């Protein structure tokens, strides 16, 4: 926790997948810019979908939880690590980026 940029909030969530993502090259969509975010998907061992968020907008944990829960309901993937670097994107943009990232995965 010591190397966290001051002001950033760090959030972690984990869901049990129903469909293994399998092997794939890491996927990166979006940019770190005002009102936007970067989403990276990487393969991981196990059946979990772990989600790590670094956000400049503090205090929105419950909204993030609802957004990523709905994401995982749409795409119940396992064996995947999701990392997000956020600079104040709205939930709409976050959901769009997550869906864009998943659509880059091999079918």
């Amino acid at each position, binding site marked *: 926790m010591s190397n966290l940029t001051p002001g950033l909030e760090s959030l972690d969530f984990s869901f049990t997948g129903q469909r293994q993502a399998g092997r794939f090259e890491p996927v990166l969509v979006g940019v770190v810019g005002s*009102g936007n975010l970067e989403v990276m998907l990487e393969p991981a061992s196990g059946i979990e979908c772990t989600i790590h968020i670094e956000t400049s*907008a503090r205090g*929105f944990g419950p*909204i993030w939880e*609802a*957004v990523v829960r709905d994401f995982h309901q749409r795409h119940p993937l396992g064996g995947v690590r999701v990392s997000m670097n956020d600079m*104040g994107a*709205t*939930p*709409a*943009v976050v959901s*769009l980026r997550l*869906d*864009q990232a998943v*659509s880059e995965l091999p079918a």
Partner: protein
Amino acid sequence: MDRMHWNTKALNRADRLARSRHALRGQLVGKQVATEAIGTLLEAALEPNDRVCLEGNNQKQADFLAAALVQVDPQRVHGLHMVQSVLALPEHLDIFENGIARRLDFSFSGPQGARLAKLVSAGAIEIGAIHTYLELFARYFVDLTPKVALITAHAADAAGNLYTGPNTEDTPAIVEATAFSGGIVIAQVNEIVDGNTTTLPRIDIPGDWVDFVVQAPRPNFIEPLFTRDPAQISEIQVLMAMMAIKGIYAEYGVQRLNHGIGFDTAAIELLLPTYGESLGLKGKICRHWALNPHPALIPAIEAGWVESIHSFGSELGMEDYIRARADVFFTGADGSLRSNRAFCQAAGHYACDLFIGSTLQIDLDGNSSTATLGRIAGFGGAPNMGADARGRRHASPAWLKAGREARAGRGGASGTPRGQKLVVQTVETFREHMQPAFVERLDAWTLQEQAGMELPPIMIYGEDVTHILTEEGIANLLLCRSDAEREQAIRGVAGYTAVGLGRDRRMVENLRDRGIIRRPEDLGIDPRDATRNLLAARSMRDLVRASHGLYTPPKRFRNW
């Protein structure tokens, strides 16, 4: 009131004219007043407690006359009752601080809203009422007739004829009310032509309605309010524009419409020649507009979508483009635009089938407002655009379909067949800085308490809103049959706001089954297709290119 005499207005007018001529002496030639003598004229022509219109429009401002009014001697001129549509300049409030004016009736105070609220709470301003534009103009002819109008035009000739230029805006309504009720009309102009070697391009206001003309040292200020840089339009706005076009415009066959100001509606304008074209909608929607000359509409005009546009005002930089597209815009024989806020507001209210605009807050009844705490801003024309025209009697397919949806299954008076205007509120569920657009209680209620207003300042009443469009989908409120359904329809498109998270999921799914809520996928729209590549112009430069170089953008822009 002395009803032994029936010409007191004419006598008073003659007095004012005689006083003014006497005070000005050699500084008056015909109707032309020397620039430096404007203070003398105002002190002679005005009387204490006069009702005065200091022309403040949405765009052009009688800024020279405003500055001169601030400078008059408060011993001679005081207690004025100001009746003007927009408070845009600091001078519009300075006159209340120094006692020259006391009472105010207006429509919109935009940039001066916070200071206005302070002056009201300090007791320096007495507000009569906040009106819509059309409402204020109406009262000019009933009980708020100006005694003196301080107006602005582009040019005058020696006879006092005025050419307003493309920003005609409120001027005809103001002058008509003043000149035909024994009032005095004083115009500031950018230039004066002699009428012989140089003439006006056209006459917008006849000279015998104008008493004095003064050349201002600088051209009047005009604000480029309606320019939106396409570079700032987001993918989410593109997605919402796709839903508006496919889920509302195409669905109802909307031919005649008005767009509010903002990036959401600019996105729709920029999607017509691309996405709209791909849906085969050209000629089927968006043919006639009540709209300022939005630069964002250039690509659609160039692609042949638009048959006519009547405008409230003009927009800086669009002059040459308008001139070259005279079939589309309302232009004079001289080629330049003639706008008219009063007529365009009437057109938007009675002759358009759809209004779409954005807002800051929507509550569970669908009431929406841009009023924020600590500001008294008013809503300008939005309440007239965003209201069902109850006096309308002519039919159109869009209007009839909306009326059928609202009345299906109802009996008695509420089931009597009639049409209804489509009033769409388009908002992202969260605005910038994660401010939720959906709230349990509008700030308007608190503002009402703070400012001691008789009603909360609601911009568009829930009863008039037919559709709410967010990135999550479209809620069709016409189809709701109870307040509970309506609340869940609103919650059902409110995304991850507290209002949205508080939805009854089962009821929302039921509303979706009945087509009251429609998600992008229900409309056959994949959000991943909503990219900026769909915009017919992605930058100001693209707009200039689309206009064949006729559009010359202003230097600065303002976000709504």
